[in-house]
């Protein structure tokens, strides 16, 4: 019952946040003086043809009607124009790119596998790396291992992903000829080549983000190891790895999960940068091209799509948090 109320409350709050964020974003993007209809009106652009283009795209409506149409499109799909020339955009419709003549959702879905492949693989790797380095450092506190790991961690926090990525390309790609330096192979096409092309991006993104997790895990583990229940566990004769692994790690994971939830947005940003370094055509490349071409519906669509994605993922982490730490759901 309590859990049900916790879940219901979280879901409700998430829906509210989604509405507010999308409304604010929509407002900002449409109040600023740029006119997408002007760009696709063609030459010569007479006032009449401009008005037609506006009406076709739905920009002749007041901003709140446009926003409601956008929201409606996400759930039920929408149509632009009427009659034979009408374009239908099926749900979930995040807008329509008149420059590329394709629904934004379709464009995004075409790029998502690249970005997600980078992001998810890197996240798994960095959690494993970060937590194990942190635990190792805490257990071997003050030793050379500890100091070396923490020095690498400070360096990792400061190193930009693209710089490390380019140096890694130079070393492992061009000099040692070990791994491919660019391109993406679809997982469905060839899983081995898929992973092989992603090894370098994963490692680069993971090493940099793992640093923060290593520092957090170390500090948290040192804290936890000083607790009474750890002394009790040791006193009853448990082996050290069991004390650290079972009694210590469980409590360390709570802040790690919290931080991970907060870092999801950064993860997406990191994946966008990594795409560029390794010349992969993912969501970031799509967005940057859209910005350069002033393809406003596509820019708004991608922005809102990523915001929705991160907010939903955050809500999922919140619920997961409730599962790890029953106190949070109380």
């Amino acid at each position, binding site marked *: 019952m309590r859990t049900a109320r916790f879940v219901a409350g979280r879901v409700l709050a998430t829906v509210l946040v989604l509405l507010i964020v999308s409304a604010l974003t929509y407002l900002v993007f449409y109040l600023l003086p740029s006119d997408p209809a002007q760009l696709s009106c063609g030459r010569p652009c007479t006032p009449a043809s401009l008005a037609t283009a506006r009406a076709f795209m739905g920009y002749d409506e007041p901003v709140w009607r446009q926003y409601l149409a956008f929201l409606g499109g996400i759930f039920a799909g929408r149509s632009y124009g009427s009659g034979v020339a009408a374009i239908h955009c099926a749900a979930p419709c995040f807008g329509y790119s008149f420059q590329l003549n394709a629904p934004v959702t379709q464009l995004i879905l075409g790029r998502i596998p690249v970005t997600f492949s980078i992001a998810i693989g890197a996240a798994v790797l960095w959690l494993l790396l970060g937590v194990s380095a942190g635990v190792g450092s805490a257990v071997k506190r003050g030793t050379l291992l500890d100091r070396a790991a923490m020095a690498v961690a400070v360096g990792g926090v400061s190193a930009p992903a693209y*710089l490390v990525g380019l140096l890694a390309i130079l070393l492992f790609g061009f000099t040692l000829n070990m791994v491919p330096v660019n391109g993406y192979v679809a997982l469905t096409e060839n899983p081995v080549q898929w992973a092989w092309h992603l090894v370098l991006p994963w490692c680069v993104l993971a090493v940099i983000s793992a640093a923060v997790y290593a520092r957090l895990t170390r500090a948290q583990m040192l804290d936890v190891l000083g607790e009474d229940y750890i002394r009790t566990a040791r006193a009853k004769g448990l082996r050290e790895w069991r004390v650290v692994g079972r009694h210590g790690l469980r409590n360390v994971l709570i802040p790690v999960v919290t931080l991970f939830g907060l870092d999801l947005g950064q993860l997406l940003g990191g994946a966008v940068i990594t795409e560029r370094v390794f010349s992969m055509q993912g969501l970031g490349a799509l967005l940057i091209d859209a910005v350069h071409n002033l393809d406003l519906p596509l820019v708004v669509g991608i922005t809102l799509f990523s915001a929705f994605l991160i907010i939903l993922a955050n809500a999922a982490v919140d619920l997961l948090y409730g599962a790890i730490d029953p106190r949070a759901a109380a």
Partner: protein
Amino acid sequence: MSAAQIGSPDVARRGSETWRRLLADRWAAIGAVVVVLLVLFAVLAPVLAGIEGQDAYTYHLDALADSGAPLGSGGGMSGRHWFGVEPRTGRDLFAIVAFGARTSLLIGVGATAVAVLLGVAVGVTAGYFGGWYDRLISRGVDVLFGFPSLIFMIAVGAIVPARFPRSSLILLVIGFFGWPPVARVVRGQTLVLRRRTFVVASEAMGAGSVHVLVRQLLPNLGATVIVYATMLVPGMIGAEAALSFLGVGVPPPTPSWGRTIGSAIDWVSTDVMFLLFPGLALFAATLSFNLLGDGLRDALDPRLRGLR
């Protein structure tokens, strides 16, 4: 003794102790020295480039081979071009790196100032007034914390008209997405401070909320704000560099480390110096500010040592 003075001896004593601890921290001291050197490098950029006899804009096609790669080893490093030249254009890399330091530091510090102003204003009022306003702000901070801000920063480039100066736009946008951590910390500190005797006394003497906020709370938040501002700078410098790297940041020909690193992608196998000089400068800048920020925080509150 006026109400305003009651809190001050506390601050002064803590200040001198902070300095002592900071100077004792070897890594923080190294960070501070590098930060000072970087600032000097940026301020003296025209002088240094003048000594070298180069600027960041002139093309030196005579320094390039037919392929566009610089002539000579090390990316064309020589007495005339200390760091070599940029492939394809032959612009002087030393001048680009030196003037790039100005871009980085100006936008980094400027965006930090924006973030700190917003964060302090929002945080201190949320902590002091509490209630629904505080709940609203806290929830907003929670949402912004996990936000894909890089995506938003890229997107804004499409909608702001071209006549608005890009560098100022980048500064404002980066700064705008930087305030939540400041607001969170300042709010927490305010919650503690408002229960302290000097605040309660001032309120009892009939001080209005503006007086309490500005004269009682703000001076006591100074140390915290300085620490967090220092810790924000590397992230801001990194954000500018990332946007420029992606081609949506500071527009050419204004020198920017990030953009030069972005151009270096195509040359990484033939001219590694083109990547290394701006890359190392960027790394030195973020690392030194991180070391200094960590050291300042530890010096201010030794209990936090080792935390992130």
